[in-house]
């Protein structure tokens, strides 16, 4: 499973990346976390506010820091 964290690198975007990695490690899930910082790539995914999270290319949350429970929900999907 690939999880993409979309954001140019502001503190909130980094927080989301850390959170996703933490939750994935806690669940022991086989997850690759990719940080997408390129604006063209972000815009192409239809995301207009960062930070955003996509799971296998499907956007799950936009413009906010998700809760741990939300992230766990996507991973267990």
């Amino acid at each position, binding site marked *: 499973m690939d999880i993409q964290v979309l954001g140019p690198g502001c503190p909130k975007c980094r927080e989301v990346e850390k959170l996703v990695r933490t939750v994935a490690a806690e669940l022991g899930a086989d997850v690759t976390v990719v940080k997408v910082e390129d604006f063209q790539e972000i815009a192409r995914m*239809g995301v207009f*506010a*960062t930070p955003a999270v996509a799971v296998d290319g499907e956007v799950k949350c936009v413009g906010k820091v998700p809760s741990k429970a939300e992230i766990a929900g996507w991973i267990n999907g």
Partner: protein
Amino acid sequence: MNDLRELRIDAPGGGIAPPEAAPSPPAPDKAPGQAGRGEIKRILALGVPALALWIAVYMHLEAWADAATYGLLGLDRGSAFASALAFFLYDGPKVLLLLTLVVFGVGIIRSFFTPARARRLLAGRGEAWGNVMAALLGTVTPFCSCSAVPLFVGFVTAGVPLGVTFSFLVSAPMVNEVALVLLLGLTGWKVAGLYLVTGLLVAVASGWVIGRLKMEGHLEEWVRLIHAGQDQPEAEPGWPGRVRAGLDAVRDIVGRTWPWVLAGIAVGACIHGWVPEGFMASIMGRDAWWSVLAAVGLGIPMYSNAAGIIPVAQALLEKGAALGTVLAFMMSVIALSLPEMVILRKVLKPRLLGVFVGVVGLGILLVGYLFNIIL
């Protein structure tokens, strides 16, 4: 992450309010769909007493600050230090309390307006009315400055006219809830209202002017070539979700800005205590015609958030600086900042970026001079 969801409403007891003290109850971690009537009842059961406590504390702040300064510490009435301290002890908790309540309310309002919804609302709008709507949406849509580029691309690719997009981009940072609360708390509703109305006017007018200049050719190539994807379907959060959004906003915004607020109020308190009455009148007064120009020139490269600059602005006003000059200074600090320009440079060619700064700067200058002439 979730520790703040536990109830933490402590009476500030004359000291400084804990920034996390939410004026309303937390919502438990539950999917929005599961939220039932019981949860709404719980919100009311905790929220109403919390609000009552908020009001009770707010009403007594001045008395407590006085008691602490002159009673508890036994300082001399009329000494500069005592006057600065009383100012700080009163204004600090007052502003933090106001900030918490208003940010909570704004957080709830914001849960109705997402950037994707703003994009849908603005797509296909003409100019003029579109500029007005964009400026209004800019004030209520949650938006952080590093989202400026994706948002800009989203708007342009949805067919929102360039000028309308700029009205949004100007009003989003300029008319800001933290600034509004601080002005309300420190200078009263008249100045706060003027700031709100003129900020919106500058956003509408500068977007309209940029639209008239027909500078679509000055966007970076990739912006025009890109095809932005579909916007994502959004789930309706429901009321418990909206309350949670309000609490998240408090944790995020108040949690982030309270040191700046207190630092700004401390500077304001020093000006209040030590700078003589009428001192600012000569350099920032109405008669110094160049003062507005200097204020804007000084404000643009400065980078501070509203939280730090407004207590300073209030203290300047109190010592005789003219309202127009102070408003112009504040607006240029908040609305035009170097980091934001660096980000916008990714989508705008230098000329359009220059026009953006020029038009907004000019609008702010006009506001400054107008107020100095009228008031």
